[in-house]
């Protein structure tokens, strides 16, 4: 595929210019490469090249024990490592039929939603930066730092959290979580509100995002969209609501739905979702405080994890969409096969379709709004 662009003559057929964006480009998220054929400033054809961050995570999983794979899952979507950890642990627990204690599940919900907020903050901030609005990025990233501090005080890491263990979580919430959350919550809401004020009704922002790379719900479903990108197209699907896992059936929250599936809708969905996540954390934390201080945090799991022979697929609603782990066990202490279903991978397939006929600058905006994380995409 890529060989036809190996020599860029500058004038291919029909006076098109082929330009190469990435893999190391300031506007590219991680090591993504797009080879775009342009007619003037319009993209005629965009070829994404993937695999620059391929680390063989799935193969690595076959050589590590079930517990040892948890730190590896941190490195998939590094903006919200905790969601990956929880997804993987839940898959193994499903395979072994472990009942996770309620308190541990509440801590998981709190941490996953914090990770979701952090992920969306990065996305909205970077989307602004890519379109030339730098200020909201600062307002959001300052609050993200506070979230990362909660993570750091919880188990000692900021980015690659290695959160949770198979059968529960490794620690109780820190004693100062209460104070931190009470300080963080109004600041978060304020940051979201300020970003909203700066961007949403700004004419430049609207012109750059509304109607750009719009997508119909039928196409989105056909391409396998999940998560915020699918909900932006107007399909109300959220695994937390539709296939409740963990304790999500106990919380009341809305699922924001867009209309056009364009960049603006994807941005708005994320803004609303941050507010919903704050609601969920509030409810989960209220439930958590009602639990006994010595309530169990770990289910009784054997020392060496040897699931029965069989296979399992479990997916959770990660900040990006449906993040699933397919695990095949042959009864030994190492998985026979681990297959990861990253939401980015399915969304990125539609990228050439999305940007066909758009401007080069909109290609960057589209890429930002899809939240393509190379670590998750290439695995």
């Amino acid at each position, binding site marked *: 595929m890529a060989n036809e662009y190996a020599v860029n003559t500058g004038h291919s057929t029909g006076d098109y210019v082929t330009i190469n964006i990435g893999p190391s480009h300031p506007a590219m998220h991680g090591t993504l490469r797009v080879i775009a054929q342009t007619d003037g400033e319009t993209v005629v054809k965009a070829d994404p090249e993937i695999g620059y961050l391929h680390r063989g995570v799935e193969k690595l999983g076959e050589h590590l024990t079930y517990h040892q794979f948890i730190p590896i899952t941190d490195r998939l979507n590094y903006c919200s490592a905790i969601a990956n950890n929880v997804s993987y642990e839940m898959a193994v627990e499903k395979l072994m039929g472990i009942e996770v204690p309620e308190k541990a599940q509440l801590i998981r919900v709190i941490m996953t939603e914090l990770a979701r907020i952090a992920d969306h903050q990065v996305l909205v901030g970077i989307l602004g930066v890519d379109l030339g609005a730098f200020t909201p990025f600062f307002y959001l990233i300052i609050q993200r730092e506070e979230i990362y501090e909660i993570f750091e005080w919880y188990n000692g*890491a900021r980015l690659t959290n290695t959160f949770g263990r198979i059968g529960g979580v490794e620690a109780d919430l820190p004693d100062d979580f209460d104070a931190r959350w009470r300080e963080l919550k109004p600041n978060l809401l304020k940051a979201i509100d300020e970003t909203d004020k*700066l961007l949403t009704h700004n004419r430049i922002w609207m012109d750059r995002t509304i109607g750009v790379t719009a997508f119909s719900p039928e196409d989105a479903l056909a391409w396998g969209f999940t998560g915020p990108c699918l909900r932006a197209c107007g399909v109300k699907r959220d695994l937390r609501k539709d296939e409740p896992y963990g304790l999500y059936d106990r919380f009341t929250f809305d699922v924001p739905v867009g209309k056009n599936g364009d960049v603006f809708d994807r941005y708005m969905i994320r803004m609303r979702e941050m507010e919903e996540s704050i609601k969920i954390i509030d409810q989960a934390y209220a439930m958590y405080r009602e639990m006994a201080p010595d309530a169990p945090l770990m289910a009784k799991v054997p020392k060496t994890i040897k699931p029965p022979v069989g296979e399992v697929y479990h997916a959770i609603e990660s900040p990006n969409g449906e993040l699933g782990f397919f695990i095949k066990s042959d009864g030994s202490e190492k998985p026979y096969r681990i297959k990861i279903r990253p939401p980015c991978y399915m969304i990125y397939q539609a990228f050439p379709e999305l940007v066909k006929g758009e401007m080069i600058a909109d290609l960057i905006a589209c890429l930002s709004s899809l939240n393509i994380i190379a670590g998750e995409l290439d695995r």
Partner: protein
Amino acid sequence: MSKPAVEKRYTLSERVYLVEILKGLVLTWRHFMFNFRASFRPGPHTVPTCWQYPEDRREISPVFRGEHMLCLDEQGRELCVGCGMCAKTCPAQCITVKMAKVAEGEEGRYAGKTYSQGFNIDLLRCIFCGFCEEACPKGAIVLGQGYELARYTPGECQLGKERLLANFRKAKEEGKLKPKKRPVPVAGEAAKEAGAEEKGAKAKGTGPAPAKKSSPPKS
């Protein structure tokens, strides 16, 4: 595959364009003035500024997973018995341990009947997951607060036993030892037995609440 047509409907204030821009400018100006006034307040970090590293260091979490250390007990004896559980559980396989019997007359140096003759951590491979800490039955290996891990040569990245013990002594001097682990309660049994039985149950306690840092006021 055709893209759906999106009609842009702007309200008047959006169409005029300057109204919203001015609103945004007022907001950023308010931020600026707040920070400007706050910058005259005494004390560090009254405004969200960068940490002026290395003069100015942020507080690190007491349970931070940084550079490793090998702990000594109160009598100054080495806790490590060289069982190799940490090396076995390490996902990155960066620990090598060699066990040896404690010789006659050496009992004062080691807490157990055996000790680790050789103990090496390859920092270039370590991913700081903290599993060694959880696997250790004696609480000997602990990830400390050291985060300045730059070295000049690969050889310096091999943390030998002397270096690990020196890390512990330094942390003890500075009073930066990790708080005692709180055992994680396990469903269906007492927490005490859980600690001895299950790897997963050996979790870091979060210890006493750290003093809240004087966080900058978020405007």
